């Protein structure tokens, strides 16, 4: 039962990442692309956690934590650049 649920969940997250790539490439404005990147890193954290469940190891969760921190910082940096024209004032 766990194998089938894991496969369904992996398939759904993969389709979600493909949809994010679509919005990232055709997004009409800059905030749309930032939003797509923001969603994409959250989805990649989900993918890494599911891969840890699939391979039955806890090695990759530190990588997921690093992706969470760096993704948030990059989103804030790009938003501040678009808002103010400068990152650190």
């Amino acid at each position: 039962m766990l194998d089938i649920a894991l496969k369904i969940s992996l398939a759904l997250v993969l389709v979600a990442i493909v949809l994010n790539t679509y919005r990232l490439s055709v997004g009409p404005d800059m905030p749309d692309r930032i939003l797509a990147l923001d969603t994409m890193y959250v989805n990649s954290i989900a993918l890494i956690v599911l891969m840890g469940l699939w391979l039955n190891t806890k090695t990759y969760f530190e990588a997921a934590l690093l992706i969470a921190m760096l993704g948030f910082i990059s989103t804030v940096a790009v938003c501040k650049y678009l808002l103010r024209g400068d990152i650190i004032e």
Partner: protein
Amino acid sequence: MSIYVILEGVISFFLIAGGAFIFIGSLGMTHLRDFYMRLHGPTKATTMGIGCILTASMLYFGIIDSYPVIQEMLIALFLFITAPVSAHLLAKTGLHQQLRRVEKTRGEPAELRDEEVGKKPVPHHSDAGHD
């Protein structure tokens, strides 16, 4: 029926629910029509989905190793703190750039109001009682 069968069912439910929420969030981000609508999908549904998947992983490794795991709790805490902050910053960026919107998007914030040259400025709501 063993306790492990019930726990396996609970973990499977959380996995499928998390995948479905993440998919619905990304679908909303792809198919809605303007930026202020598109902001709703990832900030709410995707956060719920990643919470479900992390809960499933926490349950699984907690049962396998029989001691609680820290990394998933840290990831969930960090994501739940930072998701509203990044959504707020994105909304501010969209209002600052005055992105176009469809007619059905309600609300009239001051950043998107049409300003006509030569007229009196539109009074703000908070100082309406003074005049």
